[in-house]
């Protein structure tokens, strides 16, 4: 049990997908203009990460490994992610057209989001059990959502700040992202798996 908690914390903070592994940066800058859409993006990524983990694991261990088809990993995983994102897109479009508009291009872009493929490859690469996979996916998704929310919170405050002209827009966002990544380096001292 303790090991699983450490796995969760490790995935969420120490090896945060956005701020330590630097995967999936695209929506990190694109959809963090306001808290609400950042939270929704976190939710969408959480769903895709969880289901990807849960589908990829049996696929790898019960289909690809026994047949000696390890080389199909990337193609098969991308296929699964694409299908899941498609499903998610239909669902969001039906349930919340406003959210669908807010996500814009970033929703289909989850398909090519390296955070998701990264998770799938890490899960099989580290040789996790199914329970570990679940916890790892949950932790990673929580860390992702946390970083998104922090970024969105800071950027909302930045709206009222007097940013020098040369730094306005993307420049200041990249600076913030860099400083946050530095801060997250501090979690390295937690020394978990």
């Amino acid at each position, binding site marked *: 049990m303790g090991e699983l908690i450490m796995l969760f914390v490790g995935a969420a903070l120490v090896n945060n997908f956005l701020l330590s592994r630097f995967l999936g940066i695209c929506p990190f800058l694109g959809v963090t203009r306001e808290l609400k859409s950042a939270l929704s993006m976190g939710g969408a990524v959480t769903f895709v990460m969880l289901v990807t983990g849960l589908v990829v694991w049996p*696929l790898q261990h019960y*289909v*690809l490994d026994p*047949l*000696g*088809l390890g*080389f*199909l990993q990337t*193609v*098969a995983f991308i*296929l*699964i992610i694409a*299908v899941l994102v*498609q*499903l998610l897109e*239909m*669902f969001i*479009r*039906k349930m919340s*057209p406003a959210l669908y508009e807010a996500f814009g291009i970033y929703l289909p872009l989850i398909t090519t989001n390296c955070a998701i493929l990264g998770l799938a490859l890490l899960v099989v690469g580290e040789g996790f059990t199914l329970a570990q996979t679940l916890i790892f996916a949950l932790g990673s998704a929580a860390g992702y959502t946390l970083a998104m929310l922090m970024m969105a919170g800071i950027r909302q405050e930045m709206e009222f700040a007097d940013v020098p002209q040369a730094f306005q827009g993307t420049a200041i966002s990249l600076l913030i992202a860099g400083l946050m990544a530095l801060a997250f380096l501090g979690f390295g001292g937690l020394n978990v798996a």
Partner: protein
Amino acid sequence: MVSSMVTAGAVMGVIGVLFSIGLFYAARAFHVEEDERVELLTNMLPGANCGACGFSGCSGLAQALAAGRAQPTQCSVANSEQLAKIAEFLGVEAGPVERQVARVMCGGTSAKATQLAGYVGLEDCRAAHLIASGPKGCTYGCLGLGTCVQECPFDAMVLGPDGLPVVDESVCTGCGICVQVCPRGIMQLVSPEAPLTVRCVSPMAGKQVRAVCQAGCIACKICERVCDQDAIHVIDNLARVNEELCNGCGACVEKCPTHCLELTDGQVRVLEAV
């Protein structure tokens, strides 16, 4: 080897088929009713996706049209026939369409304009303009790196051998993208029927203009004096034409000492195939 290729194909095939069946049912369950006019309208629009209308491409404008938030004439690319069709489809008046074309308001060819320095860098006028207003002596003149040519979505522009861009007015749709990207404000949208063009935008005094360019307007006011229609006036060191009064007689063009005036005669200028 062959057998693993077969199993690989089979496994991917099975996964693909399973997923597509799943998606098929999901698509049914989450089906969203859409305004079917949007797709029809998208097909009726020119499909240039240039964004000149202010929407995200043709489908964006189609959505706005269907919702009544836009007018067909906002599309500057479609010709009057296409616009009439769209207007009829929507049951609205198309209104008059004023065709516009982009014109190069600078005559400072590489032979006529002084070059202060060489420019080695990004082949983009916007970048060159940022460095001390570019390598040209005239800080208002065309930089000649062809950013407008690159950005033109309709291939209506080429960079001429004299270092100035040339517009093919039969292809130009007046979308205004070149006007937006030019850091010098040299591209301007005008009616193709406008008879007279002043090919200079420099508001500098005559002496300063002459120091850097042989083709600029030096505000000598000869055009003002020879015009019997009172159609051309030098305001802020630059000749300006009142298009309503100008009859295109060409008296000023003949007398202009720097030849910065150009008679277009209402002719649509077409480029020879390059």
